[in-house]
């Protein structure tokens, strides 16, 4: 890929990001109600106090002034203060990010491994009982609302059987620091992680299955068979490698969705990550917090999308040639 093409794609991604930032401003400012009135409802404020608060929330001046100030602050990663806690939005977001990365990252990797394997088997043995069962499982798990699955697993494994904690990230009376704390957190993460893994694997399986079916007609597979390779060798060395190519885009994209992927499941298990933060900011609604979260979620997807586009030509020489 030429430097020009790379620059073009990077510029395109930056353009998309800029569009999100501008969209974000209009979405929240144009429709927004007056937070000062909402937050201090029923309290007697002097005009001076009211002005002071309006200024604190960055809502004074004309829309155009607000817009420039907003752009300036956003470029400095300053998203204002949360209406709910009065803490800087960015601090709260950073504090919640590691938990989400741990939970959704683990589930995505697990779901990917299991789902892709399921897809390969189903696609390779298309039309057999294997295929029907695996595809059936994939479609059913895809059709299930993930938070409902979480509720079921929570009832069975945490409430009925008492094998796992019902929510949160650690036991307040549990071990502090070191390996013990880590194990305690893993114990808390097991159920939400299982929920997300089951919820995600269907999509990977279906996409992998269709990729395998697409490459199954290719001549190079006939050649590989004619060379006398065993079926498993043809599948793993030839079909799988080629079928993985279209999946890379999906895989890169799904890493982009890691941050925003678990809003409902984190809510069910009160897992203190970005999803629970989103849920809590909806109560207010805590607009600066939502604004910051939305920007972060979008930025993550845009960055990984760009990564997928840049990576693809290196993985598939056929694209590079064009």
């Amino acid at each position: 890929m030429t430097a020009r093409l790379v620059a073009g794609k990077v510029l395109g991604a930056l353009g998309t990001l800029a569009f999100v930032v501008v969209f974000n401003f209009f979405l929240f400012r144009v429709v927004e109600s007056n937070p000062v009135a909402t937050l201090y409802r029923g309290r007697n404020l002097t005009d001076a106090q009211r002005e002071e608060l309006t200024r604190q929330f960055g809502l004074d001046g004309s829309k155009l002034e607000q817009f420039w100030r907003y752009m300036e602050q956003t470029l400095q990663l300053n998203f204002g203060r949360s209406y709910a806690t009065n803490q800087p939005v960015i601090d709260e977001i950073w504090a919640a990010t590691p938990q989400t990365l741990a939970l959704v990252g683990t589930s995505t990797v697990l779901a990917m491994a299991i789902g892709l394997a399921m897809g390969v088997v189903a696609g390779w043995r298309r039309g057999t009982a294997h295929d029907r069962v695996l595809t059936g499982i994939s479609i059913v798990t895809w059709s299930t609302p993930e938070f409902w699955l979480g509720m079921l697993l929570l009832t069975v494994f945490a409430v009925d059987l008492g094998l796992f904690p019902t929510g949160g990230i650690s036991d307040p009376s549990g071990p502090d620091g070191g390996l013990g704390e880590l194990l305690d957190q893993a114990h808390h993460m097991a159920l939400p992680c299982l929920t997300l893994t089951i919820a995600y694997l269907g999509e990977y399986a279906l996409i992998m299955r269709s990729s395998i079916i697409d490459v199954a007609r290719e001549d190079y597979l006939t050649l590989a068979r004619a060379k006398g390779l065993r079926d498993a060798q043809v599948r793993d060395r030839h079909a799988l490698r080629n079928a993985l190519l279209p999946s890379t885009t999906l895989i890169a994209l799904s890493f982009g969705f890691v941050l925003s992927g678990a809003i409902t499941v984190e809510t069910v298990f009160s897992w203190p990550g970005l999803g629970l933060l989103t849920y809590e900011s909806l109560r207010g609604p805590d607009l600066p917090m939502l604004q910051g979260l939305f920007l972060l979620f979008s930025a993550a997807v845009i960055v990984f999308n760009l990564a997928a586009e840049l990576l693809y030509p290196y993985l598939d020489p056929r694209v590079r040639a064009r």
Partner: protein
Amino acid sequence: MLVLGVFVAAALAAPLLADEANLRAITADARDYPRWASPAELGPLGTDSLGRPIWDQLVYGSQVSLLVGIAATVIAIVIGTVVGVVGGFVGGWTDAALARLTEWFLVIPFLPLAIVLAAVLGPSLENIVLVIGITSWPVTARLIRSQVLSIKERLYVERSRALGASGAHIMGRHVLPSVMPLVIANATLTVPVAILSETALAFLGLGDPTRVSWGSMLEDSFSAGALGQEAWWWYLPPGLCVIAVVLSFTLVGRALEGILDPRLRDSHAVGR
């Protein structure tokens, strides 16, 4: 197909199957229904924490879930088809701009965008439909656009143009009818996504507070602590209904797609 028929019939015949008054806590109080009653105590499905019978909620919930699913799909499909046909047919700057817009909507994470829109617009049935509709069209637009690009080059379109037909005439008479089957198959696959989105939004408390939907039943049961009470009769049925409806729409959609395009048969993958 059969399952779908049952659910549509239930939604249409809701007043015959269930008593709408039972959706209100006041009626439940007046009729002295027990709270947290299991199906064994009060048939057929027991009651919730306010004594409202689950059965009536489930039947009326099907109305909202199906309505939102179908109405949002209509919006998404109309936007997607218009953007796809116009972009693909007109080409040039219009196409470039529309393609950019489509790509942008594709890249924006769907649920956060829907959440933000719903939070800003406020919870009501119309807003939920609108929010899901305007966030679900890009996949359709892209699909239709690529189809239009290939139809545009066909001989009969060429002939029509040679005979002096206007762009609008060709779009209406030739392009639109030939993408219609694709549009319908795509619509069938958009409905389940819309229903799942409604369920998720309602679970997050962004649904219409005056209506019962399957998602809002799940939200009610979750926030009332039905999990700890082991009131399975409350949260199990709505979830199963969602799965049944989503599953049947998906299967019908995949079958339709397979009929329209044999090359696609069995190879369709559903996107999140």
